[in-house]
């Protein structure tokens, strides 16, 4: 099947996750090979997703872990884990 640009945009997420049906995947790849616009859309989407997965985007508050484990210490020393 010959896909147009919109068909390809609609499938970008599944294409990135590798969950497209093999025949559809082949159609998408055929379109991408000849379409500069869709290639740029795919590359930039992929790039944005790689960037947002980086731990530097959201840093944990300073001493978050220290406060968490101090609070846990207080609870662990006084309570057994519940049985419900």
């Amino acid at each position, binding site marked *: 099947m010959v896909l147009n640009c*919109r068909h390809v*945009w*609609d499938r*970008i*997420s*599944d294409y*990135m*996750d590798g*969950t497209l049906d093999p025949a559809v995947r082949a159609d998408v790849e055929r379109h991408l090979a000849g379409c*500069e*616009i869709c290639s*740029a*859309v795919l*590359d*930039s*989407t992929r*790039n*944005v*997703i*790689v*960037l*947002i*997965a*980086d*731990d*530097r*985007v*959201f840093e*944990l*508050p300073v001493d*978050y*872990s220290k*406060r*968490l*484990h101090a*609070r*846990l210490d207080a*609870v*662990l*020393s006084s*309570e*057994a*884990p*519940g*049985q*419900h």
Partner: protein
Amino acid sequence: MTAQQITAELRQERETALIAAILNGEREKFHDLIRPYERQVFLTALALVKNETEAEDIAQEAILRAYRKLASFRGAAKFSTWLTAITLNEARTRLREEKRAAFDSLDGNDPEKGDFTPAVLIDWREVPLEALERQEVRALMQQAIAELPDAFRQVVVLRDMEEMSVNDTAEALGISVALVKVRLHRARLLLQKKLAPQLRRAVKPKRKAGILGRLPWF
């Protein structure tokens, strides 16, 4: 079996042993059980409340709740999925108590429906991870994520930031796999549309390092 599956299986065995030990009285081991998930719990809470102080508070409460109901963890789900579901519940309860909407309505201007046009940038250049060293670039990304509709942000945080599978994301959120896929797709394209042009402006390609570029006064 892939290396990834082996790692996942080893992690699960380790967690099962830790949980058994904790329930048997070695309470201190709960610290070790929770340590790999501290960041995930915080991000999950932040996806709902969008405020760091509140997200930290929710993260602490969710982790304490997980300790208190540890015996009810049956191992049917992954520990991480179970913990994420507890965190989402904790955050939703908090939002309800404060009478803030836990989900913004997707009616009206429904971003799950209709055609969508991404940002079309022929001259796109890949933004390297090093760009995240810059506060300005991090702020752009944080803002774009915060501006996503709530239901989309939750999916993208679990799937793309915490790198959970689509199935685990669906299980933690209590929605179908199909809905996770639809929301994930829209969220990714919304992020592309917003961020691709902004990042292109913020991260200009380096000038070619000719002889002039290497001289300190140029």
